[in-house]
């Protein structure tokens, strides 16, 4: 997993492609350009925070349609739209569908760079969150079924004694389970535990 951001540029006009590549490269971004949406999909995407600079009017299909398709695939880096003929309804649709920015050609370079920066940061956060989630899930899977039961009850705010009563265990056993849980989930305090179960969406299953 690399941390060097990549900017993808998709525009059917070669002159625009080259000029954008140069501009983005001048501030140090790695840039990859594509003439069409198909070329972009066919290429292997780098495992790095990225941002997509997309012309609304692409050959053969609209940029907005492509935005929806990427969203369906669930692997879209944030999109910065550029257009030669932007109208308000189009920009509203793009922004509602999660675009970072909607710029009209010719745009101010700073606007584009800011938007690209924001897109990359957004993607970085998303990726971090996704990887943190994966980590937590991995830890949770090391818990035994009984430990999972105890964890859910503890997280719901019950005292050890109450947990013991519910599960028909002794209070001492519950305490042992609890220590195991805290250790395995790398939680130091009860608050940590609650946060983790919250993120995993674990709720108390009444039995």
């Amino acid at each position, binding site marked *: 997993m690399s941390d060097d951001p990549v900017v993808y540029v998709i525009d059917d*006009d070669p*002159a*625009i492609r*080259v*000029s*954008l590549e*140069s*501009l983005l*490269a*001048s*501030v140090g971004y790695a840039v990859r350009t594509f003439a069409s949406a198909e070329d972009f999909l066919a290429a292997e995407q780098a495992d790095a925070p990225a941002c997509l600079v997309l012309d609304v009017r692409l050959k053969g299909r609209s940029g907005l349609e492509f935005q929806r398709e990427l969203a369906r695939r669930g692997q879209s880096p944030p999109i910065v739209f*550029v257009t*030669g*003929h932007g109208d308000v309804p189009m920009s509203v649709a793009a922004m509602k569908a999660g675009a970072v920015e909607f710029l009209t*050609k*010719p*745009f101010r*370079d700073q606007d584009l760079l800011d938007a690209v920066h924001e897109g990359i940061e957004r993607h970085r956060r998303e990726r971090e969150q996704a990887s943190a989630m994966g980590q937590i899930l991995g830890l949770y899977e090391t818990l035994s079924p009984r430990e999972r039961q105890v964890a859910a009850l503890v997280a719901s705010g019950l005292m050890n004694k109450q947990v013991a009563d519910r599960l028909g265990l002794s209070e001492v056993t519950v305490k042992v389970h609890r220590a195991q849980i805290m250790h395995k989930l790398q939680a130091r305090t009860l608050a940590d535990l609650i946060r983790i179960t919250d993120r995993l969406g674990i709720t108390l299953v009444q039995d």
Partner: protein
Amino acid sequence: MPSSSDQRLIATSLPSDTQLRVIFAVVVMLVVALAATAPYAGRPTDGTEIFLPAYAAAVLVIETTTAALLFATFRVQRSVSLLVLASGYLLSAALAVPWALTFPGVFSTLGFDQNLQATAWIAAARRIGFAAAVVGFALCDPRWTVRSPSRWISASVGGLVAGAGLVLWFALTVTPDLPAFMADARTTAPAWAYVPPLALLLYAVGMVVLLRGRRSTLDIWMSVALLSLFVEILLISYMGAAVRLSVGWWSGRFFGLVAAGTILLVLLAETTGSYARLVQVAINERRARRDRLTAMEALSASIAHEINQPLASMVTNANAGLRWLSRAEPQTGEAEAALKRIVDDGHRADKIVSGIRTMFLKGAQERVAVDLKCVIDEALGRSASERALAAVEVETVYPPEVKMVICNPIQLLQVVSNLIDNAVDAMKAGGGRVRRLTISIEDGEPGEVEAAFADTGPGVSPDIADRIFLPFVSTKPDGMGMGLMFCRSVIEAHGGRLWIAANAPTGAVFRFSLPASTVVEESNKVGVHP
């Protein structure tokens, strides 16, 4: 003054087969009525005076309505013959009222019927006056037009009301001293014997002139009207033994009324139909104009997009170049590449512009000598209906000699059409009382011909006048601001100039000059039809 003839109005169109059938039916009805009533015509009918006010009221309504319709047609067509005819109807209508008021034994309480002669004198004035008006209508050349029809209408109506008053005064006060028309309340005196033949003579002359000319549907209908009056006089004065309120006297009037009513209905139907057709044509003209604008809109949008791409690329490249140079270690190689790309973008933009120019001004190089007057007349003909609806008068002031200019006729026609459309729009929007477009051709600088389009609209304020030829500057609510820009670029491409001045007391004058042609060709209509 030349005026575009309009084939869609009753006063100019020729009758259709259906119309001819209706006309024939009316004529047959009149003749049959004459034959049927002739044997009983002399019988007196007592106590029928009470029908007289109803008859007079019907005559008044029918004749004033006919007059109004004819005045309205005159307003559009401005032909003097129509004005004469409308005046005849109005005079006849105006005199119907005093005729009934002075009729012996009808409005006795008012006391107007003391003078036995008054009614007969009014009747004589009515008959002869109307017959003279119809003959005048028949003899007038329909191409003889006036400039401001509204003023003529006001003058005619005023004159006729005064004339009717004069007749009334004459009939009431002077006539007792003149030879008597009436022996008593019912029977005529010997002097009356001159009136019916005179009327018959005028009717006959009118019918002959109208039927020989047969210029329009209206001519045919007017000859039917004259025939009905002819029959009426025959019944009243000869078969009815010139006795008032006899069967012949009444039937003559009744059939005359029916004929007049039929003619009014036909006129109404024709006028309404013509108006509907006129509106349709005007709508088509407007649609054609809108389509032209939409095409221009699409063209300008595509130009904007085409130019925008290299423009965006240039801006981005320039920014990239600056950023390469302002790095900690300036990258001159990258900056140079960016500059080269800017040059390429500039050339690309230029190629697009010149490509559009070639496409747009295709064939602009074909220059011929054209009579400017023909181009203006052609453009006027194309917007005739819309101008008629907007009640815009056009006055053309052409010099006696032919003014030839060197130009592309199609483009010049577009320029002239544009200037006329603008003037009409301005006057429609301005809501001024007088809507007159004056187009004149004048000598300009040596070797040049000038054309001026002066309207009476609200004019163009000085702060806009400076910019009005720039693209996207418009004073119209839905204007694109391309028309005048186009006009100026075309005129300048021809080596001429287009400018604006103020018209006095209100309005704007658009003026253009074009190089004059020294060749005066015989064929004036060189390819004005695209």
